[in-house]
């Protein structure tokens, strides 16, 4: 895999820097991952690797129906099985929480249809394999045997799996307590439309009517899973002092602490959370899964309780990404200028509200400057597992539709798809669909990087397989950037080394990058910095790891902590050197007075002296709560070969250009880009949940849920474009989310280029290509589409101001 770094010549502001560092020493270096050796030698401790004496194992019983009233659950036989310590059902939860919190039982709280609250099905099951009971026993086998002894009487209810049916006025609501939320207010009658997101500007009808060329098309993506290698695992212990200790695979230990404290109705100080190494999260481990169940069982049994999901549990009953139906219309002038866009997005968010988001709109249409537009997104409930965040939530689906429509437009105009995108690409000062202006961004730079790359400029090479067809396609996408709160401490040791302490979870090399920032600012060798990811009793507060926020936000905190440590070192040195702190020079790990440069102190000497000097040890602290978002853009070129007789697709090459602001560690950045691209290829070509008519998942294993293997992953060439972000250190931007956004559309466009099949459903590979080839009109003509009659269109009332959305953690 080759990489090109493309400097843009734009100077980087290094905020708050009190010295000018002429040459950076560690920033931008390909230093090896700090925890790499532990991981490849199998010593790293993942979620399931922690055990305690006298520990019990828990297993859950999943609902046999996708939608059913729970008439009764008989657990007597299960509880009587030797080795079983507890069997708990949803009905037991209010009482247990009341005992833990010493408050009155409040069963009515479980009537609120929230996945986070209903850790076990409450009165009804709303998706297949939703947990209805858990058993804790001295071994996993006995826990499983206990489950087999539980008798659940169900009264099956009608199952609705198609969001376009579920959202209709005549559809029966899955929950009594879901009322459509809109920016204007909340509906009065229950509905399966949990939320409507609307964004508009100008007169879209007039603008579309005035367009020289119009494209209208409908697209649909499948429900897909994040596909993290490590299934969720958690261990909970309850101590006689009333405290819960949790060891879990999570993206945010403080998020689990507040979430669990909220569920158990105890103050956060009664919960201590230790995050393990995480074997992939991609957004899915931002929300709690097993922690409340394990905590409840630990309390009930008085013993530590461990729970670990199977792959089948993970696929059937965690939180995948919504499938999306969308209708996209764009209008342009003959010269390619986009004048109007209109779109409907239907996000199948599954059985509980959540999962949909404005990201689907902002991450797709947000790449283009369009004067008049109207976008509506619907979060629609169905009897499938409730969905959650997956890498740039809903961005890939939306961008698939938008990028496909743009290629259809380019085709219609006889224009190069890259030129069309360049003509309409957003730049600093343009506004996104939410009407927020962009700061300095680098979309055009990524487009130019692709436009001048040989993979785009050279003639298409002939296919390597006889009878196959070769094509290439491009796509763009963005991620708005994550911010949030981060804190870091830096302890300076007596030997002049440094320890960075954070409470943020390392998903993708955070420790390495933070060590680089600390080493850079302390001007000490990278090897002399240790980074500790501590538990919630020890570490300073941080929001969860997600939204591509860590290098940007935590990086700022570490940067500030290093500056703080440096300031303290200068103050302490000033005492020794008997000069004002302002006269202390700090360079290369040494301090001296500018008045007497011959007398030099090392950091270690200052640290050793200060701990006994009355000034105390040096502990730098840095925190950040608000940064300007740093949107990151990407343009990708995908090359494919297609077998027009079978529908087989092989991706032969990907060139991924991304504005990364500043690559602190290019190897880590490439890893993010390549990972995002490969996940996008799977989503585009082979991944998708298949449900039967009763709502049971037909492919709950990795044989039939087809994620790409190493053999399917092509060469991914990374073009690291460095347009520095306005805020934060070094111009860095978050890099994790955006590389998955353009891939789906780029693949679809490449397949069209290869064989003329405009595939409007994902996954593309196989039969959909043959279907599209059999109907060549598809992808050329506009598809007429009428939005379904909604249950909310008559009685939306403004009851209250909808609270500003909480930060979504991806």
């Amino acid at each position, binding site marked *: 895999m080759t990489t090109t770094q493309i400097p843009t010549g734009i100077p980087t502001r290094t905020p708050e820097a009190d010295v000018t560092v002429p040459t950076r020493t560690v920033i931008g270096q390909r230093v090896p991952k700090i925890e790499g050796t532990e991981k490849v030698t199998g010593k790293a401790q993942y979620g399931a690797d922690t055990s305690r004496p006298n520990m019990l194992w828990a297993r859950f019983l999943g609902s046999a129906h996708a939608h059913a009233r729970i008439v009764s659950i008989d657990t007597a036989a299960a509880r009587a099985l030797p080795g079983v310590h507890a069997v708990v059902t949803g009905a037991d939860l209010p009482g247990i929480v009341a005992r833990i919190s010493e408050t009155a039982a409040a069963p009515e709280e479980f009537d609120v249809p929230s996945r986070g609250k209903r850790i076990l099905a409450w009165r009804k099951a709303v998706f297949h394999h939703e947990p209805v009971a858990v058993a804790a026993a001295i071994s996993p086998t006995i826990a499983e*045997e206990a489950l087999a002894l539980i008798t659940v009487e169900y009264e099956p209810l009608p199952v609705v799996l198609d969001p376009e049916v579920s959202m209709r006025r005549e559809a029966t609501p899955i929950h009594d307590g879901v009322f459509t939320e809109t920016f204007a207010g909340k509906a009065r009658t229950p509905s399966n439309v949990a939320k409507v997101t609307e964004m508009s500007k100008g007169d879209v009808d007039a603008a579309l009517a005035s367009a020289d060329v119009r494209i209208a098309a409908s697209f649909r993506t499948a429900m897909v899973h994040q596909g993290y290698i490590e299934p969720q695992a958690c261990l909970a212990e309850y101590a006689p002092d009333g405290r819960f200790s949790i060891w879990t695979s999570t993206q945010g230990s403080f998020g689990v602490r507040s979430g669990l404290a909220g569920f158990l109705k105890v103050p956060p100080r009664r919960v201590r959370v230790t995050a393990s190494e995480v074997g992939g999260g991609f957004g899915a481990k931002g929300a709690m899964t097993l922690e409340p169940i394990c905590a409840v069982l630990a309390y009930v049994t008085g013993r530590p309780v461990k729970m670990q999901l199977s792959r089948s549990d993970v696929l059937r009953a965690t939180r995948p990404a919504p499938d999306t139906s969308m209708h996209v219309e764009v209008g342009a002038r003959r010269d390619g200028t986009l004048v109007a866009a209109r779109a409907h997005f239907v996000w199948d968010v599954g059985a509980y509200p959540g999962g949909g988001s404005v990201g689907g709109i902002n991450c797709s249409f947000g790449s283009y400057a369009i004067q008049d537009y109207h976008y509506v997104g619907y979060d629609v409930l169905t009897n499938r597992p409730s969905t959650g965040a997956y890498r740039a939530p809903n961005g890939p689906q939306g961008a698939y539709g938008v990028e496909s429509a743009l290629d259809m437009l380019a085709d219609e105009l006889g224009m190069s798809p890259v030129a069309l995108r360049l003509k309409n690409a957003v730049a600093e000062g343009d506004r996104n669909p939410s009407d927020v202006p962009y700061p300095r961004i680098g979309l055009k730079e990524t487009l130019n990087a692709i436009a001048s790359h040989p993979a785009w400029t050279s003639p298409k090479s002939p296919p390597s397989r006889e009878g196959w067809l070769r094509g290439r396609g491009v796509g763009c996408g963005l991620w708005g950037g994550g911010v949030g709160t981060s804190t870091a401490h830096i302890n300076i040791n007596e030997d002049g080394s440094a320890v960075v302490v954070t409470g943020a979870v390392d998903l993708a090399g955070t420790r390495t990058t933070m060590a680089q920032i600390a080493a850079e600012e302390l001007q000490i060798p990278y090897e002399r910095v240790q980074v500790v990811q501590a538990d919630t009793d020890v570490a300073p507060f941080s929001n969860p790891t997600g939204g591509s926020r860590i290098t940007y936000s935590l990086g700022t905190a570490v940067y500030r902590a290093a500056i703080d440590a440096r300031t303290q070192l200068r103050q302490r040195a000033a005492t020794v050197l008997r000069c004002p702190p302002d006269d202390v020079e700090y360079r290369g790990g040494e301090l001296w007075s500018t008045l007497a440069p011959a007398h030099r102190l090392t950091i270690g000497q200052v640290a050793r002296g200060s701990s006994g000097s009355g000034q105390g040890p040096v502990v730098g602290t840095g925190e950040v709560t608000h940064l300007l978002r740093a949107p990151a853009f990407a343009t990708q070129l995908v090359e494919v070969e297609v077998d027009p007789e*079978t*529908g087989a697709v092989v991706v032969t090459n990907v060139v991924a250009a991304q504005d990364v602001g500043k690559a602190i560690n290019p190897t880590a950045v490439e890893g993010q880009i390549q990972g995002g691209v490969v996940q996008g290829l799977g989503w585009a*070509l082979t991944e998708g949940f298949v449900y039967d008519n009763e709502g049971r998942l037909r*492919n709950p294993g990795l044989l039939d849920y*087809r994620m790409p293997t190493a*053999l399917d992953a092509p060469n991914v060439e990374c073009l690291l474009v460095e347009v520095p972000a306005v805020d934060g250190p070094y111009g860095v931007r978050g890099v994790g989310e955006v590389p998955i956004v353009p891939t789906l559309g780029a693949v679809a466009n490449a397949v069209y280029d290869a064989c003329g099949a405009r595939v409007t459903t994902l996954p593309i590979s*196989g039969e959909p290509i043959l279907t599209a080839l059999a109907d060549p009109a598809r992808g050329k003509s506009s598809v007429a589409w009428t939005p379904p009659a909604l249950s909310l269109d008559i009685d939306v009332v403004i009851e209250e101001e909808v609270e500003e959305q909480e930060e979504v953690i991806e």
Partner: protein
Amino acid sequence: MRAFAYHAPSSLAEAVAVLEREGPGGRILAGGTDLLVQAKERGSVPRYVVSLRDVHELSRVSFDEAGGLEIGARVSLGEVADHPEIRRRFSAISTGASLVGSYQIQNRGTVGGNLCNAAPSADCAPPLLVLDAVIDVHGATGRREIPLVDFFVGPGRTVLGADEVLVSIRVPSPPSKSGSAYLRHTPRQEMDIAVVGVAASVALDARGDVASLRVALGAVGPTPFLAREAGARAVGQAPDDATIAEVARIAAGEARPISDQRGSAAWRRHLVEVLARRAIKIAIGRALAA
């Protein structure tokens, strides 16, 4: 996983004795690549397991012109895939073995296990069907031979009795001027299961016409099976594109696919025709080169 009894006999006779003594509910462990997955993921834990680990007489591959090819029950897929004689004379078999799972799976899994597991999509089955394989079986009442065409009963089911062990797979030496091929369609490049698998074997006569042609299909019926009509149609014809297209069309008609998470019945039928055409073409090419 529930506990089960484990037996590791050191001879075939002893293995059969264990099966006879313990009765129904046992499974034979060769590579374990299907057995253990089924036990762990589907909860189908056998009452007892008889491992062939120490039955060394089953780990041989032999070939001679007169006796043909014999693959012992414990021979790994990898050994079959890489065997020079099998690659040269029984191309379809080495291809089928090379497509099962990963290298790790091929190092443990066996051809015999692939057959006894009786998946409709078993990659070793169509190649062995078109090459007239015979299964050698040892049971409480002695030895018997079962032509592979009579071996499969349904998904996961064979004619093997509870006391019987597959000893070896025997394949007659192919005639001169013959060739075989196996193709399958999978959405991923490897590490996948066949949506459709098609094997073809062709023998040409002295004039260069088709003396015999066999097509076998996988994943388009409850068992892998020979598309007999398709094969019969070609006999005596010139091995040209028209013949090939006609045979492939008939084979597609003989397929009995279902729609499931791996593909629709209509697409599978279409794939049978495409892959049959391609496989026959490759087999003819090999026959001409032989």
